[in-house]
C-alpha cells in the first residue's frame, strides 16, 4: 500500500484531490488509521436504557455489540466469535442475558466475556484451554459525553473530552438544550453508492448546497400565501450572517445567526420558541439564539438542528450506509415529539424531500470518479475566511464569520491527513503543534 497523503491535499490553495473518495488503498488506510484510531459514536443512553439492552453497530467495517450492563455501564466488543469468526449477535437490537454463537455454541455474557463452551471439559485440554483468555476483542476504550457513548480501538487516543475540545460547546447547543436531554424515537437505515467523506464534509461545512440542491423542497414546504420573506425560515437563514467552526481534531459545524426556531413544523417551532428562556438559562443567550445548524464530529457522526443524528458506516470507497436517528427533547409533549419525527421522515430520511437530492449528488460524483482523469482532478475548497480574532466573540475555537465557507471541510481534511500520515496519536498531535508554532 503506497498512499501519498500530502500529494492529495493542498491546504494553502484549498484543493482536495478527488482520488480520496475512490482510491482502494486510501480506503484501506482509512480503516486502519481513521476508523481504527478515532472516537466513533456507538450509542445513546436512550437506545439501550435497561440492563441487557443491546444493539449492533460498527466501527468502520468492524461489527460491534454495545450493551448495557447490570451495573449501568456500557460495554462494547467486536461482534465476532473468537472460535471460528462467526458473527455472534445477529439481531439489530433487543434485550439479552447472553449471546450464543449459532455456529458451535460458544456463549458470551453482555460484556463479551466467554462464559460457555460446549463439551469444554471433555474436548479441550484443561491445562491449555482457559475461557478467560478467549473472548472477542473488547473495544479498547468506551467513554461517554452527556449520554452519547463513543468507542475507540486506540490506547493512545486523547480522552473523549479532549478529543471533542471546543466542539463540546457546540455539541451542547444540540444535545443539552433541555433539562431532560434527548431521546431516540426513530431510526432509518439506507445505503448510498458514494464515499462516506462526502457526507462528513457536507455536515461539517456545506450550507451552500442547500439553496440549489434543495430548491424544490424549500419551495414547496413554504406554506403558500401565509409567509413572507421575513417569516420564511429558509429565506431568513440565507439572508442572515452565519459562522463556521473548525476543530483541530476534524470536527466542524456551521450555522446562520437567526434567533428563534428555524423548524419548518409550526407545532415544533412554537414549542422551541416557548423554551427560549429555559435554554438561555441553561446555555446562555448565544446558544439559545444561534450556534447550531449542521455538524460533524469526526469522522462519521453527524447531526442537524432538526434532531437528526446519524452515524455513517463506510462500506468500501464507493458506498456509505447511513443510520439516522430521530432524537427529540425527552421533556417535550407527545404531539411535539410526533411532529419532530414526522417532519424528519418527510425531509431527512430515505424518502425525505431534502435527503433524496443529496443522494443523487453523491451517487453521481462517485460514478464519475471511475474516470482516470476525473479522479485526478483537484476539487475547489477555496471559500476561505479569516478567523475571528481571539476574544472578538463568545464562540470558542477557530471560528469564521461566514457559514458559506469551506473552513470546516478543510479542518476536517487537515486532521484526516494528520491521521492518515501518522502511526500514533502522539505523532498526529505533534504535527498540529508544529503547524501552530510555525504560524
Amino acid at each position, binding site marked *: 500500500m503506497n498512499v501519498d497523503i500530502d500529494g492529495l491535499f493542498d491546504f494553502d490553495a484549498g484543493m482536495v484531490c478527488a482520488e480520496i473518495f475512490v482510491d482502494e488503498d486510501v480506503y484501506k488506510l482509512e480503516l486502519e488509521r481513521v476508523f481504527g484510531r478515532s472516537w466513533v459514536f456507538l450509542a445513546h443512553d436512550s437506545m439501550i436504557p435497561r440492563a441487557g439492552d443491546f444493539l449492533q453497530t460498527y466501527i468502520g467495517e468492524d461489527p460491534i455489540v454495545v450493551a448495557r450492563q447490570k451495573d449501568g455501564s456500557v460495554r462494547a466488543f467486536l461482534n465476532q466469535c473468537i472460535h471460528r469468526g462467526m458473527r455472534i449477535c445477529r439481531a439489530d437490537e433487543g434485550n439479552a442475558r447472553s449471546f450464543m454463537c449459532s455456529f458451535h455454541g460458544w456463549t458470551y455474557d453482555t460484556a463479551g466475556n466467554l462464559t460457555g463452551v460446549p463439551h469444554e471439559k471433555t474436548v479441550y485440554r484443561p491445562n491449555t484451554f482457559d475461557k478467560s483468555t478467549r473472548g472477542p476483542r473488547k473495544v479498547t476504550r468506551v467513554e461517554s459525553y452527556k449520554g452519547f457513548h463513543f468507542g475507540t480501538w486506540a490506547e493512545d487516543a486523547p480522552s473523549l473530552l479532549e478529543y471533542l475540545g471546543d466542539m463540546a460547546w457546540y455539541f451542547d447547543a444540540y444535545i443539552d438544550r433541555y433539562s431532560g436531554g434527548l431521546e431516540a424515537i426513530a431510526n432509518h437505515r439506507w445505503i448510498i453508492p458514494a464515499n462516506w467523506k462526502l457526507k462528513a464534509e457536507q455536515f461539517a461545512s456545506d450550507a451552500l448546497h442547500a439553496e440549489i440542491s434543495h430548491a424544490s423542497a424549500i419551495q414547496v414546504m413554504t406554506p403558500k400565501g401565509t409567509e413572507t420573506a421575513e417569516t420564511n425560515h429558509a429565506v431568513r437563514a440565507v439572508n442572515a450572517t452565519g459562522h463556521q467552526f473548525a476543530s483541530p481534531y476534524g470536527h466542524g459545524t456551521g450555522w446562520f445567526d437567526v434567533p428563534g426556531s428555524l423548524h419548518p413544523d409550526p407545532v415544533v417551532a412554537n414549542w422551541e420558541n416557548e423554551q427560549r428562556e429555559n435554554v438561555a438559562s441553561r446555555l446562555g443567550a448565544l446558544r439559545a439564539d444561534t450556534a447550531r445548524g449542521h455538524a460533524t464530529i469526526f469522522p462519521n457522526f453527524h447531526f442537524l438542528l432538526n434532531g437528526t443524528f446519524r452515524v455513517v458506516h463506510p462500506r468500501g470507497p464507493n458506498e456509505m450506509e447511513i443510520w439516522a436517528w430521530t432524537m427529540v427533547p425527552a421533556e417535550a409533549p407527545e404531539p411535539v415529539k410526533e411532529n419532530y419525527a414526522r417532519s424528519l421522515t418527510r425531509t431527512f430520511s*430515505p424518502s425525505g424531500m431534502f435527503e433524496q437530492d443529496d443522494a443523487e449528488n453523491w451517487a453521481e460524483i462517485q460514478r464519475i470518479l471511475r474516470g482516470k482523469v476525473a479522479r485526478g482532478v483537484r476539487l475547489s475548497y477555496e471559500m476561505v475566511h479569516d478567523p475571528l480574532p481571539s476574544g472578538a466573540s463568545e464562540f470558542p475555537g477557530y471560528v469564521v464569520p461566514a457559514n458559506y465557507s469551506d473552513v470546516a471541510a478543510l479542518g476536517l481534511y487537515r486532521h484526516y491527513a494528520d491521521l492518515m500520515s501518522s502511526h500514533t496519536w502522539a505523532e498526529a498531535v505533534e504535527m498540529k503543534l508544529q503547524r501552530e508554532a510555525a504560524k
Partner: protein
Amino acid sequence: MSPDTESMSVCGCDPASLRELRAQRLLHREAELLDAWQFEEWLELMTEDLRYWAPVRTNRMWRERSRSISMPGESAHFDESLDQLRERVDRLATHMAWAEEPPSRTRHLVTNIRVEPTADPAEILCRSNFLVYRTRSERDMDQVVGTREDILREVGPGEFKIARRTVIFDMATILVKNLSLFY
C-alpha cells in the same frame, strides 16, 4: 336493489368477486398513473382523510418478533396526510427535485390482490403485493418490493377511493439510494 345486486345482474358476478374486481381495477389504474407520472390524477384516487404510512422493519430475534415492524408513532418511511402527499407531488412538479430530474422510468407491478369486507359496509380491506422497478439516468436500476394493506372506501355507487394505505417494504436496511416515488 343495492348497487351490488344490480351490478351482479349486469356482469353475473357475486358481491365478493365484484368487490375484488373493483379493487383490482383501482390498483391497476393507480399503477398506470404512477408509471405515467400523472401524480395529480393519482391524488384524486385518495380520500381527503387519507393516511399513507410505511413502517420501518428491524432484524429481531424470534422472541421479539412483534417489534420487528415499527408501530404508528415510531419509525416510518412515510407518514403522510393527503396534503402532505400533495406537497411531494408539487415538489416533483418543480422540476428541481434532482433525485427525479431527469425523471426515472418506473413499472409498478401489483399482484396477489386479496379483498375482505370490514365492519364498515362502505369500506373494504384490500391487501396486495408490489414490485416497483426503476431505471434512471444512464444505468441506474433498482427495485423495491413489499406488501400493502389498503382501506378502500366506496364514495359513489361502485366507485372506490383509497382511504388508508400501509406500505410494508421487505427491506430492513433500505438498499436503494432513496424512496423518491410512491408505492
